[in-house]
């Protein structure tokens, strides 16, 4: 059986032959080196550290088995952080995808100057998360921020230094803003891949614009929706450290301490390397699971 599969792979993939025996290894060497230095090594360090306990001065290290993990899952602060992260990523994925979908549907209808709109909508993606964080921090700064000022004029006393809800809103907005561009691109491409005649047929079949969107376009967009859902959750889980660090510092209290932020704070401010390593191993498990889900379903394509 295995031989049969191997044979099939051999037949299906175009075989590239190299004249020199070592050339292919040389060509993949840089990628392997990068993976080793920046992924395998730190990851194995984290795995190793997660079973150790070290005193605050790094003088004594002892092996503690899974004690770090056991402690983590009995720690209400950690569980709280888990909950915060899930709320945060659900909101980021939801907000950024909803806004992007609305923009994509509107951009899909634009005929003139379509490229201009598209380019403008893609720009935010070029802004680094930390910079985006600072930008929104300025806008919503309770003392000098123009958005905070506007909210104040509307009768809402905005202060993300005091109010946990405000702080969460701020990081969700800052994290989603950039992601909207990315989602927009995929949604627009997805919408444009739907043959125009389908919506025309639906229009003749008596479906109004909203009904057409719900019964025809959205179902046909479901593979894109699923793909973006995974991508956005991964983003919210792992790439939003900069946003949190630049705006709320995880506060007030623990209100915006998401998992990645806690990893960093426990390690570099709390100097609890063992716990931090254990937390990163948990995160690693989550990202592996998400990637597996994505591969499994995207490869097979969501069926409709």
């Amino acid at each position, binding site marked *: 059986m295995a031989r049969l599969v191997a044979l099939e792979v051999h037949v299906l993939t175009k075989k590239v032959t190299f004249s020199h025996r070592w050339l292919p290894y040389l060509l993949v060497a840089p990628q392997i080196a990068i993976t080793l230095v920046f992924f395998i090594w730190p990851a194995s360090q984290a795995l190793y550290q997660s079973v150790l306990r070290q005193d605050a001065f790094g003088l004594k290290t002892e092996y503690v088995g899974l004690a770090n993990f056991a402690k983590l899952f009995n720690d209400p602060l950690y569980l709280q952080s888990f909950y915060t992260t899930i709320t945060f990523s659900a909101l980021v994925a939801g907000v950024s995808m909803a806004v992007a979908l609305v923009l994509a549907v509107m951009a899909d209808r634009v005929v003139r100057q379509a490229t201009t709109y598209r380019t403008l909508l893609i720009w935010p993606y070029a802004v680094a998360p930390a910079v985006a964080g600072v930008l929104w921090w300025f806008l919503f700064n309770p003392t000098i921020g123009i958005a905070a000022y506007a909210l104040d004029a509307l009768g809402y006393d905005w202060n993300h230094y005091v109010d946990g809800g405000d702080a969460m809103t701020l990081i969700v907005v800052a994290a989603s803003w950039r992601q909207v561009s990315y989602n927009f691109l995929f949604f627009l491409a997805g919408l444009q891949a739907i043959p125009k*005649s389908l919506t*025309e047929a639906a*229009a*003749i*079949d*008596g*479906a109004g614009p909203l009904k057409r969107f719900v019964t025809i376009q959205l179902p046909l967009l479901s593979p894109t929706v699923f793909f973006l859902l995974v991508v956005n959750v991964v983003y919210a889980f792992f790439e939003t450290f900069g946003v949190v660090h630049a705006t709320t510092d995880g506060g007030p209290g623990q209100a915006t301490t998401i998992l990645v932020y806690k990893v960093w704070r426990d390690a570099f401010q709390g100097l609890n390397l063992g716990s931090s390593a254990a937390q990163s191993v948990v995160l690693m498990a989550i990202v592996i699971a998400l990637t597996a889900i994505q591969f499994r379903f995207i490869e097979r394509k969501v069926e409709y």
Partner: protein
Amino acid sequence: MSDIRLRNVRKVYPGAAEATIPGLSLDIGAGELCVLVGPSGCGKSTLLRMVAGLEEVTDGEINIAGRQVNDLEPARRDISMVFQNYALYPHMTVHGNMAYGLKNRGMPKAEIAEKVGTAARMLGLADYLDRKPRQLSGGQRQRVAMGRAIVREPAAFLFDEPLSNLDAKLRVKTRVEIRDLQQRLGTTSIYVTHDQQEAMTLADTLVVMNAGRVEQIGPPMEIYARPASLFVAGFIGSPPMNVLAPGTGAALATAAGIERAAGHAVVGVRPEDLRAQPGGPLAVTVRVVERLGATANVHGVLDDGASEVIASLSGTDLPGPGEVMHLGVNPADLHLFDHASGQRLECAGA
């Protein structure tokens, strides 16, 4: 019953210098199947889409069943359309596809099931109602598209090149099915195609279009027998009409006793009207012989060196390439067109 009337319908796309359709009037009687035929870009699809409500009408008036529909949504025009790519909803079953339009109109479920069932039986789709479009063959998909159009029992069917995605054999078969169905239902239909054979075989009324204008309207056989212009003569009929070089044409016409031909007329002869005639007036050097079975198309050059002709001949005694054969034609079968305008000259009554 429902007829369709177009009055001075104009279409100018925004930003375009010239009108796609500069002004067109057309009457389609109730229950008639009207075929719009013409080369690509002649505006026939645009016209159909305007009737459907998928394109805005720049100017003029469109009436369906006595009601002006210019500003009505497609859904409210009481029409259904069969698209070239069928436009089936890929995420719905065959049943779902056919029921969609009825559901949107708030028809009760039992009634929907009954109507879909009837249409499915009529089209031989009863066993496929639970399948998704991608599980069907091209011909079956085409029939689902037809089913979706007929379940609604609209005032008019609009067909936009519905057979062009089928292979040649299936196309001929489906063509007959469409004609049969349309006759049984008696629904007024507009059918767009660029295939002259499809147009000839399906039409009650044939509309030959060129560059947004109607070249000729009439029953197919009348258009075939008396094409109104050189364009129509070249478009309808396969192989197309032979157009003779001026000298040869004039000589032929004069010999046939048609005086007007001298000088300013172009003379055309249909390949089917040419016959082998020893000592006949047209001496052809044969280049290629295409045998089609019952007939054969003999391609060659006349002895004037300028006119390429095709003769559609029957029989087995055909010349080989390089040989010279003589052809004759009945004077009544000569078509005369004005040299400058290309319009038909009515005098070939000989």
